[in-house]
């Protein structure tokens, strides 16, 4: 695995030149956007000022409007170009630097069928979005991950009969799937534990009543039990998967990520949903793309994903699954 020092060298020798070009594209997109915003202000002002004096003054308002639309379309085009280049030349470049054999599709994402098969989130999805699909193999372990944002909607009708739609996030963050190193038939879920931590014994009893993910599996590692709650279709299989070693590794991974992690073991794959509140691998339009700290953030988030195979010891193939 590449280190932060390797990245610094890579940044100096390769990435900085590409970033300069991407930065120029960003500046152009930003300027175009500012122009479109100015156009929008002009439309508003002319509509408010002129039309109150003379009706014919609608003409400059319409002219400004057309101009603003043209500027807006151009700004969007430039932004898309900048965004595409950032993904290919910066994110793609960092991924290839980590391993040239990995495949990266900026517009791709984990298919909804796989997200649903993972069974981690049981709410029905009304809006499914994602990007930055990366796939490949680390030694003997095949993996795929992408950023995902899934939502469901609710509709409210007020007393006047107006209907309002609200969107609620189910999951936002990094969704990672890898081939697990042991055979298994059932399903096992490792979910963040909030009930037990907040309500102690009562919370633990409540967990036992929850049936959406199967039966509660009480494990013997206190540190693991403090962070996670486990449900599964088979008590023994859940323990076969979650060996004492793997439990420790999952706790370590949670500490390293510093985020909520959900796991599921389904159809011989392990799925991890790591919650992020920010958009991953993106650069703001208003702010330099050249910063080293930003590149370091991309690298860190990518390394967290690639590191999962090693962190969970998935390349240890000493059982009948090779």
């Amino acid at each position: 695995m590449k280190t932060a020092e390797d990245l610094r060298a890579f940044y100096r020798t390769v990435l900085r030149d590409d970033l300069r070009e991407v930065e120029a594209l960003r500046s152009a997109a930003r300027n175009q956007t500012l122009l479109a915003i100015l156009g929008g202000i002009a439309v508003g002002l002319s509509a408010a000022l002129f039309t109150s004096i003379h009706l014919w003054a609608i003409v400059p308002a319409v002219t400004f409007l057309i101009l603003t639309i043209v500027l807006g379309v151009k700004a969007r085009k430039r932004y898309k170009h900048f965004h595409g280049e950032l993904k290919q030349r910066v994110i793609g470049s960092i991924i290839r630097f980590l391993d040239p054999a990995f495949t990266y599709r900026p517009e791709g994402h984990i298919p909804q069928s796989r997200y649903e098969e993972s069974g981690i989130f049981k709410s029905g999805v009304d809006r499914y979005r994602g990007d930055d699909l990366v796939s490949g193999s680390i030694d003997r372990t095949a993996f795929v991950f992408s950023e995902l944002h899934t939502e469901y909607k609710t509709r409210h009708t007020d007393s006047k009969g107006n209907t309002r739609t609200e969107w609620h996030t189910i999951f936002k963050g990094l969704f990672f799937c890898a081939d697990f190193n042991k055979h298994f038939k059932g399903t096992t879920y490792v979910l963040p534990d909030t009930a037990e931590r907040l309500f102690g014994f009562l919370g633990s009893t409540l967990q036992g009543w929850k049936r959406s993910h199967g039966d509660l599996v009480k494990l013997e590692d206190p540190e693991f039990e403090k962070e996670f709650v486990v449900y599964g279709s088979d008590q023994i299989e859940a323990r076969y998967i979650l060996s004492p070693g793997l439990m420790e590794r999952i706790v370590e991974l949670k500490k390293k990520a510093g985020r909520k992690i959900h796991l599921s073991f389904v159809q011989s794959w392990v799925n991890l949903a790591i919650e992020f509140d920010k958009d991953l691998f993106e650069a703001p339009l208003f702010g330099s793309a050249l910063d080293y700290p930003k590149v370091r953030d991309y690298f860190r988030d990518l390394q967290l994903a690639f590191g999962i195979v090693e962190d969970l010891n998935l390349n240890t193939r000493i059982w009948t699954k090779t």
Partner: protein
Amino acid sequence: MWITFVVIALAVVLLYNSLIVKKNRVENAFASIDVMLKKRYDLIPNLVETVKGYARHERAALEEVTELRRQAISGNKSTEERIVMDNSLSDALSRLIVTVESYPDLKASEHFMHLQRSLNEVEEQLSASRRAYNAAVTAYNTAIEVFPNSLLARTVGFKHRTLLATPQGERVVPRVDTSPEETGPTA
């Protein structure tokens, strides 16, 4: 008056049923250990035969494993006796695997490698079954100790169960050597 009686009777029935459920979970968990042990017993003759072909000098270790297996599957034994026997078998198997590590031809054998993987798998499943058993026993013991369950448990004669200790061999991480340079035949 009779409503109070019905409520108490219902509570006793519910308590009794919940204790029975926990007791049955313990029995089931113990039965699953048996299933895994049987799987391990079935693997041993095959393993012994394979090792014999390559490592003729390890007769003592092979005989020890064979003898322990024979003792484990013969006759009626108490739970404690069987646990002690299975732990000795686990230790003898780990010792045998460590000994045959020094036979490169054997290590290179596909058949041996598959057996070793199967053995690792069975050992890990066995360990999972033991842990599931201990979890079931802990839940059962807690249930019969807390008030008012303790009164009922004492009346119907539910007894405290003992947890299984982890055998020495299970604390050692098993491995299968698959690196080509080490699995090649000796010169």
